[in-house]
């Protein structure tokens, strides 16, 4: 508050004003809202329950798109429209949960590796680099196969979330480490230190809040990335075969692409539009939160 009792615009309201003026960012945000709505109400407006073969008994198996089945029917009798609606909930769950988890792990490890010097930082950086050079997608496939067959049956998509997060945090961690290295030499950190603040207080109360902008952008773009990864994993047949996801539909449609193009087209379009929404929103946030571009 200044002397006139008027509150200056906060950092977040400035960012919101900048974001609002960014046309593509707003379009992205609208797409994201649309898919969140579908994720919430989708299963209740879907004409058939998840994994239902009912159209088979109505003689509609393998039908192209029609008024009754807007996105057509699989050869096995699954209604593609219902499954695309259900897929929104499941794919958003994987994207949001995996992005949240990797951001938490990445920020914790990256901030510690950037703030401390000596052995702690060396070990954490080494660990991050090992995970960074690992061919993550391949190991995700392997783990999904091993764990779903041998260890955790019935965890469903949560298993995929855990595996994606386990192999997906290293990029976040490297960026956060760089940001921490940059911020920790700034005056306000020295000021906090000279007032006697402890390491953990400085790190998580002073440094991390100041690097929240890149964290928000990374997390948003991460949702897009993890949805794409989940789609690839399920397409290859390593996902959860009992939960409708867009990747699973693409997997089931692939043997029939010569005849049943609709099983491949519509789930793929859903992926493209949804991921595009998160990417546009992430770009918009990145512009809005970037202090170098501020007027």
């Amino acid at each position, binding site marked *: 508050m200044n002397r006139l009792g008027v509150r200056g615009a906060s950092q977040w309201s400035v960012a919101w004003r900048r974001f609002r003026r960014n046309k593509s960012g707003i379009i992205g945000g609208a797409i994201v809202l649309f898919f969140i709505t579908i994720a919430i109400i989708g299963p209740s407006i879907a004409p058939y329950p998840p994994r239902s073969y009912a159209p088979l008994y109505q003689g509609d198996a393998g039908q192209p798109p029609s008024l009754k089945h807007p996105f057509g029917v699989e050869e096995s009798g699954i209604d593609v429209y219902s499954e695309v609606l259900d897929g929104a909930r499941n794919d958003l769950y994987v994207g949001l949960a995996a992005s949240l988890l990797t951001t938490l792990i990445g920020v914790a490890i990256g901030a510690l590796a950037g703030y401390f010097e000596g052995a702690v930082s060396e070990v954490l950086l080494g660990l991050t680099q*090992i995970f960074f050079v690992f061919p993550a997608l391949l190991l995700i*496939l392997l783990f999904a196969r091993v764990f779903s067959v041998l260890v955790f049956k019935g965890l469903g998509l949560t298993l995929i979330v855990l595996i994606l997060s386990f192999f997906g945090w290293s990029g976040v961690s490297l960026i956060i480490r760089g940001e921490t290295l940059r911020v920790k030499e700034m005056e306000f950190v020295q000021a906090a230190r000279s007032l006697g603040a402890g390491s953990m207080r400085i790190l998580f109360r002073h440094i991390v809040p100041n690097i929240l902008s890149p964290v928000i952008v990374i997390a948003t773009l991460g949702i897009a990335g993890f949805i794409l990864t989940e789609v690839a994993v399920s397409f290859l047949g390593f996902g959860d075969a009992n939960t409708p996801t867009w990747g699973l539909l693409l997997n089931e449609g692939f043997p029939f692409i010569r005849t049943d193009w609709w099983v491949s087209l519509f789930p793929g379009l859903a992926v*493209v539009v949804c991921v595009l929404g998160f990417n546009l929103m992430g770009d918009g946030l990145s512009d809005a939160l970037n202090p170098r571009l501020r007027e």
Partner: protein
Amino acid sequence: MIPVFLGVAILTFMIGNAAGNPINLIRLGLRNPNPAVLDALRHYYHLDVPVYERFVFWLWDLLHGNLGVSISGRPVGSQIWSWAWTTMELQITSLILAIAIGIPIGVYSAKHQYSKADYVITSTAIFGFSMPTFWLGIILIIIFSYDLGWLPSSGASGISFAWWGNPFLDQIAHLILPVAVLTYVGLATIVRLVRANMLDVLRQDYILAARASGLSDRAVTYRYALRNAISPIITIIGLGFGASLAGAPATETTFSWPGLGYAFTQAASNLDIPLVQGITIVITIMVLVANLMTDIVYASLDPRVRID
């Protein structure tokens, strides 16, 4: 680099051990396993010694280029080299095309920021960035292979029938669709990066100084701006190339392209642990080499960076 390599080796080895005992998998395929044969296999896979000793055996073999034998009975090493070559053929062609097309487009887009062309370029790029690569492949197969019949839909070469009448053209025909897909997706990333970095650099004072000293627009753009904008891009391209060595398993599967990614997918599906370990470690070594080469290129382009 050596500690990272050791760490990766240990993790790869542990993954193999966590995934199960290869003897049990072999035993599944035998009706009346002979105990002597199982003992011999156990000895062959060093399953009769403690795990740390087995790691030393494995690392020793690895350093001598011996990656063991897959559960199908074929040596892992020779199989991997043929897949690695097929993957590289695809990835290097796409990478070269993506760089050659992406850099001029990105520069143009940055120089004409907010023009119509810039909007078209950036929206095309973000679409490529948001698309599952393999899905684009499926759509192209439906259009160009099945509807129009112009191009083959799968494999790296024809078996009984050569496209366009000769073996060399046949290989080109098989490359076109997968290369087109990977180039578009790679292009999207490169255009976005070049544009963003060029916009940053073009705002700098030394660009103004170069312009004020009367240099031609071309010289300012390419010799002053691009050279400074490109160094961070080299790193990203290098890292991306490393990642692409894993062979984009979904894209290779879509085109039945006999590369590392497709092979790994099959091996993981069959839980062929020696093969899985072999592919993982070979890809990791190639990624480490690619990263080292990136650092060298970076240092040679940017005089501020020197390798000690």
